[in-house]
């Protein structure tokens, strides 16, 4: 690793730690119903929203009511987006005249599900598919809504631990409204202005047609990028305005914008661990969670950066200089932007996959096998390495419950966490949440690795890329492995990564895979729905059960969970579960690819 890479990681973490306490305290006050400095200026908006929508913010909801409210809200917003995307040709702000042809039913389904679940997986190139209205309204609504839902769920789970002998875990509508008005909106307003100052476009102009020096015509896409970019990163959404996402200079103009983006991605996920500690009455509990996440993150960053800096042995074997010097970044620069280099690209890859953001500033498909294994493993852990806004914390609390359960088994004591006995039901719910993720990733990956779909007849449409909608010709793939850019283990990694990304609600891809076919659009959409809602429901059930319990006073035999020992145990559980569950898949993909690469280099 270079000095630059080390310094970047240290400065990045220093900022995340510095932001955690003030932002975390602010969120604790917001969700505790207390007044903050923003209430004087924005309180009218909150009260007005409640009045218009008929919400009583003081009405405490049982976990079942909270869950149904969340599901109904998500379904309604999904439906709105689906209809808006299908009808984009009839809606305003469409200077490029895109219509239903560019957004067939399977793609609209995948996209609407994707944005509803905070995944923002995009099987399409936005600048040749989506009108400005589709971007700014149909999709952007989810950048706000899904982020607010994720944070609300995390707060509800925290209340399960913090409250005692009560039925309710909060009011879903109040949590979403407060999150949007007092957390996301102020940060987004400031961040959008910063992006505009850094050179990110914000206009409604049609695409510019430029003439190159050779006399060719070049279409330069633009539009309201800054306003989408800020909430894309802040809400760990990840869906870009351009196909190249944060590798595009209009989304991510330079190194400072890149670093600012990274801090945005982990600001709320890092701060919400402090919110957790504040709400349960012991901030050390939050720092223990933060510490566990940071430990996992740092190892991944170091491994990924080192692997990418080392590059591939083939280049060295061909006597090509791959060392980092004053005039070159060295290492594996395939698929990376020269303005970012190795360190910033590897850091971005680990941050975005730890966070369930999914924005990319380099092409993960071009990473070395071990370099690509790190982002993949980050997603396979369940997106708990800081994770998505809210989702990372409730995912890590799922592991915390399992950690105290396993610790309790080892010493023969009833497990306790934060003064609550962890009994059969809580463990069952944590296991359900975890197992459904594994079933989705492994099941869909296995299915797509082997399924043979027809190449002729009416059913050939199941795995056909509709190229004619984008100025090309249709491609019929047949078998689901036909969509891959690579054969062998790297090709398998493309499939494995796609379903890990969908299930983990990440949204990044080994983008060699052509996913814009009905087969992949439908199966990845299902993995996104399962990974989001089938994980949330049992964790809310766990929260509801915990809220009803009495607090058990700590004794000399209680396992302290605000210590380095607990954080280390938590890291161990996350790694063990991830490794045991997914080792076969990793072995068939990036691990064997790594050994194969080294073996071929000596031929």
């Amino acid at each position, binding site marked *: 690793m270079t000095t630059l890479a080390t310094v970047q990681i240290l400065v990045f973490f220093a900022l995340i730690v510095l932001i955690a306490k003030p932002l975390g305290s602010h969120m604790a006050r917001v969700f505790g119903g207390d007044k903050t400095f923003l209430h004087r200026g924005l309180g009218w908006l909150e009260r007005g929203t409640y009045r218009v929508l008929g919400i009583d913010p003081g009405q405490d909801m049982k976990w079942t009511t909270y869950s*149904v409210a969340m*599901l109904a809200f998500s379904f309604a917003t999904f439906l709105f987006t689906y209809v808006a995307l299908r009808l984009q040709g009839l809606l305003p702000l469409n200077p490029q005249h895109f219509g239903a042809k560019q957004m*067939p039913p*399977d793609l*609209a*389904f995948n996209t609407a599900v994707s944005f509803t679940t905070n995944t923002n997986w995009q099987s399409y190139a936005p600048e040749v598919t989506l009108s400005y209205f589709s971007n700014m309204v149909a999709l952007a609504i989810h950048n706000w809504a899904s982020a607010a839902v994720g944070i609300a769920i995390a707060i509800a789970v925290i209340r399960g631990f913090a409250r005692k002998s009560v039925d309710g875990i909060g009011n879903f509508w109040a949590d979403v409204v407060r999150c949007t008005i007092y957390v996301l909106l102020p940060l987004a307003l400031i961040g959008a202005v910063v992006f505009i100052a850094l050179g990110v476009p914000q206009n409604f102009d049609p695409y510019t047609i430029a003439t190159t020096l050779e006399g060719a015509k070049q279409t330069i896409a633009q539009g309201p990028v800054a306003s989408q970019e800020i909430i894309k990163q802040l809400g760990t959404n990840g869906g870009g305005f351009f196909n190249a996402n944060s590798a595009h200079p209009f989304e991510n103009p330079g190194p400072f914008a890149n670093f600012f983006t990274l801090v945005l991605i982990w600001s709320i996920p890092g701060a919400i661990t402090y919110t957790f500690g504040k709400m349960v009455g012991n901030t050390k509990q939050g720092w223990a969670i933060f510490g566990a996440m940071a430990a996992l993150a740092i190892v991944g960053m170091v491994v990924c950066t080192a692997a990418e800096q080392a590059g591939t042995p083939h280049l060295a074997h061909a006597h090509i200089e791959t060392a980092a010097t004053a005039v070159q970044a060295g290492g594996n620069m395939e698929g990376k932007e020269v303005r970012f280099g190795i360190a910033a690209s590897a850091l971005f890859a680990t941050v975005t996959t730890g966070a369930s953001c999914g924005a990319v500033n380099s092409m993960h498909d071009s990473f070395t096998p071990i370099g690509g294994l790190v982002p993949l493993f980050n997603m396979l852990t369940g997106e708990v390495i800081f994770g998505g806004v809210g989702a990372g914390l409730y995912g890590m609390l799922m592991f915390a419950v399992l950690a105290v359960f396993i610790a309790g088994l080892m010493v023969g004591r009833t497990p306790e966490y934060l003064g609550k006995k962890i009994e059969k039901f809580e463990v069952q719910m944590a296991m359900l949440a975890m197992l459904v993720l594994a079933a989705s990733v492994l099941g869909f990956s296995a299915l797509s690795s082997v399924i043979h779909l027809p190449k002729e007849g009416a059913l050939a449409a199941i795995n056909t890329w509709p190229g004619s909608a984008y100025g090309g010709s249709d491609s019929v793939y047949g078998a689901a492995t036909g969509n891959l850019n690579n054969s062998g283990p790297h090709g398998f990694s493309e499939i494995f990564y796609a379903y890990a990304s969908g299930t983990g609600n990440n949204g990044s891809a080994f983008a060699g895979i052509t996913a814009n076919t009905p087969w992949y659009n439908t199966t990845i959409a*299902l993995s996104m729905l399962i990974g989001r809602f089938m994980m949330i429901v049992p964790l809310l059930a766990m929260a509801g059960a915990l809220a009803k*319990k009495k607090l058990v006073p700590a004794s000399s035999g209680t396992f302290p969970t605000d210590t380095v020992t607990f954080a280390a145990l938590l890291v161990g559980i996350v790694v063990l579960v991830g490794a045991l569950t997914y080792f076969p898949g990793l072995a068939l993909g990036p691990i064997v690819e790594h050994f194969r690469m080294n073996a071929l280099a000596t031929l």
Partner: protein
Amino acid sequence: MTDLFFITIAIGFFGLSIAYTYGCERLRGDHHD
């Protein structure tokens, strides 16, 4: 693959999720302490 097909899938999934919610509550009720 029509609009109706995909909307039906979505309704089915969200309906299943609501059923899952009440299923978990029933499971919790069986373990009521």
